[in-house]
């Protein structure tokens, strides 16, 4: 396949394996995947459903983090490498806030209220960090070549990681959950309350973000800035404030994901953010970067694929998790660079 692409490319300036070949290959991959899923389901249906449910839970978390990537990339075309680590800082903050500072470590009415309060505070915390990162670093690099903000993002990611290391220690920490550990059974499969909470929060945030971007004045300013910063500035839009607001939105989504992560997965690790961020970015690309619904769908898909690979009776197993996720990413970028919901953009001269 590689050599075909290379030789085909030698003849033409743009590299394209024939459209038909590409489509057939893509189709084959999808058909193989579906066949594999059916095969697994026939063998162990109950296990598969519970694996998929846990995948859904992780996927919702990926989706929330992916929203931050997609918002920021959509407006200034920056892959915010520090976003995953921002999420990590959020997990540590929220766990400490709820358990150590507010003092809640078991389910209850007061604990639920405290959890809602924690949501708000953590979202504000992450939004504030993201905004200050934009204010102190990225803002000054808007006119610079693209490599500069990207490397700055990597640098900030290092800084966040070190703060997380000092805050959380070098070993993972376990935290109690204030969401009831039980659930209800549907056809013999346990559906946890935490999954319901996660899905509700994700849906709510997606709805709110879509509303802000599509329906409000600020959202209109965001879309205008994304299209053409100079044009937007000429139209009287405060470009700096708009970009800052976008970073705040992305940070808030990461904060919500952080609280949910601590409540459902129960651990905080200083190096959690990097891998998580990479996978979330993959999700954003999968859904078509710049597209909010796409990011959520991509996140859920990646979560499910990862869970299926890790938990299905005929999966590759957890050791190959990264390989599977990144192979999907690479295949996707080769076959459909614009993502599932993205629009194909043309290169400008």
């Amino acid at each position: 396949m590689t050599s075909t692409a290379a030789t085909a490319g030698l003849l033409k300036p743009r590299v394209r394996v024939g459209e038909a070949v590409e489509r057939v290959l893509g189709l084959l991959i999808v058909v193989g995947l579906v066949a594999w899923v059916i095969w697994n389901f026939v063998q162990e249906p109950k296990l598969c459903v519970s694996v998929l449910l846990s995948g859904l839970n992780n996927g919702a978390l990926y989706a929330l983090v992916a929203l931050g990537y997609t918002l920021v990339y959509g407006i200034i075309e920056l892959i915010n490498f520090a976003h995953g680590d921002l999420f990590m800082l959020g997990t540590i903050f929220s766990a400490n806030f709820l358990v150590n500072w507010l003092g809640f470590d078991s389910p209850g009415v007061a604990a639920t209220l405290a959890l809602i309060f924690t949501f708000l505070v953590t979202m504000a915390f992450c939004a504030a960090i993201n905004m200050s990162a934009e204010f102190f670093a990225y803002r000054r690099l808007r006119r610079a070549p693209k490599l500069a903000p990207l490397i700055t993002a990597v640098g900030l990611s290092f800084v966040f990681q070190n703060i997380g290391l000092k805050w959380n220690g070098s070993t993972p920490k376990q935290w109690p959950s204030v969401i009831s550990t039980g659930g209800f059974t549907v056809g013999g499969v346990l559906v946890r309350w935490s999954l319901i909470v996660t899905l509700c929060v994700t849906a709510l945030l997606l709805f709110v973000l879509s509303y802000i971007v599509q329906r409000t004045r600020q959202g209109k300013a965001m879309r205008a800035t994304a299209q053409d910063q100079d044009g937007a500035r000429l139209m009287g839009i405060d470009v700096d404030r708009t970009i800052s607001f976008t970073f705040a939105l992305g940070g808030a989504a990461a904060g919500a994901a952080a609280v949910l992560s601590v409540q459902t997965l129960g651990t905080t690790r200083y190096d959690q953010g990097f891998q998580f961020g990479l996978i979330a970015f993959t999700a954003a690309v999968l859904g078509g970067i710049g597209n909010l619904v796409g990011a959520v769908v991509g996140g859920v898909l990646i979560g499910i694929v990862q869970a299926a690979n890790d938990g299905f009776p005929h999966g590759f197993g957890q050791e190959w998790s990264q390989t599977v996720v990144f192979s999907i990413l690479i295949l996707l970028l080769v076959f459909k660079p614009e993502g599932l919901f993205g629009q194909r953009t043309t290169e400008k001269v």
Partner: protein
Amino acid sequence: MSTSTAMPRPSAGRSVGSYAWPVGFGVAVVLVFVFYRYWLPNIANSGEKLVADWFPITTLNLCVIWAIMAIGLNIVVGYAGLLDLGYVAFWAIGSYTGAWMMSSQFYQVTVHFGAPSSLGPNAPGLHFSFWLVLVAGAAFCALMGVIIGTPTLRLRSDYLAIVTLGFGEIIPQVFQNGDQEHMGFNLTSGTKGIGPIDPIGTGWLSNLKGVDPALGLSSYELPYKFLVYSLIAAFCVFVSLRIRRGRLGRAWLAIREDELAASMMGVSLVKTKLSAYAVGAVFGGLGGVCYATLVGSVFPNFSFNFSITILLMVVLGGMGNVWGVIIGALLIAWINYTGLAQFGNWINDQFNTHVNFTSWNFLIFGVILVLMMLFRREGLLPESRTRLIMREPARTELEVLGADIEAAEAENVAVAEETEEELVAAEPAPRDGDSS
């Protein structure tokens, strides 16, 4: 004698310039070698300890290997402008190629070819000459470079970074899982790693006085290894400098600066980009083989941090300039392995504090990266051409800022550019219009 040519030809100055560096490089390397091999063991105890603390020969060897890596990444990122975030893949491939061909990993067969005689003729496994393994590692990496490069060819810069990053995550994981349990056969021994790796055979040089037949892991042999690695680094520098001036190098610079314009001028994007990946990968492979022989065993601990550190070296030193990149690499590798810890000890001794400086190295690197990007984007020792690009936003960069999420007219760009220049000229801090 030398003044007999009254009229120096125009090319004379240039050729002197381009042949001055091997002499300087050689002298520096030999001085370091002589110092560590002959002088250091004989000088007074306190001085020896000071040098051994601050500049141990192991760290110097590692520095040279990192420099080889940085020179390789400089081809891809600095020359061709393709952001590669998965360069660690080539390091890993090179190291494992070295490990496979110079250890008892494949004990089922016994193949010896130019291996040091100290191994004995019946040691099981593949045992090839170090120099042959270098060639093999480089060739294998070049092939992998082309394989990794091919899917990225039609991607724009950010996606390209992500795909290379993906390969950088996949390949170490393949090595990590390459044991009986996960793959069905023992390719890499998984997390146990491969070792011990053969020492570097010295061949006929061992007839010289004081040279061992094989350069292993003892501290006495490390200065000789320094010579070997420096020779390989010099080869990489030579190749980079020569390619840079040739047709291929100019094609790389052209696609770095404007891909579209370059392809319109007849530069084959496919060939140029793939060759950048391949040449970069070759250097990565050389460095990887060196690393395997220096450490004496290979473990699958290649992480994204390696890629980022190499990128940091390239950016800090000055993208596109081989000498800048080398300085960046030596500096950062030294700080990483010895400098920061020693500096921390020194501070703690001076002020009676107990700060663990090495635990802050991520923070320090992160802050350095951000500050460099904010205040000296072009690096410590930039190429003049890069400095211009990094200072002045290129026309294409302005377009990128106003890039189309949906579709925007190309005509706006020229207008927007002029407007922006006027805005910048009119106000010291460009704010938007409605704040008044």
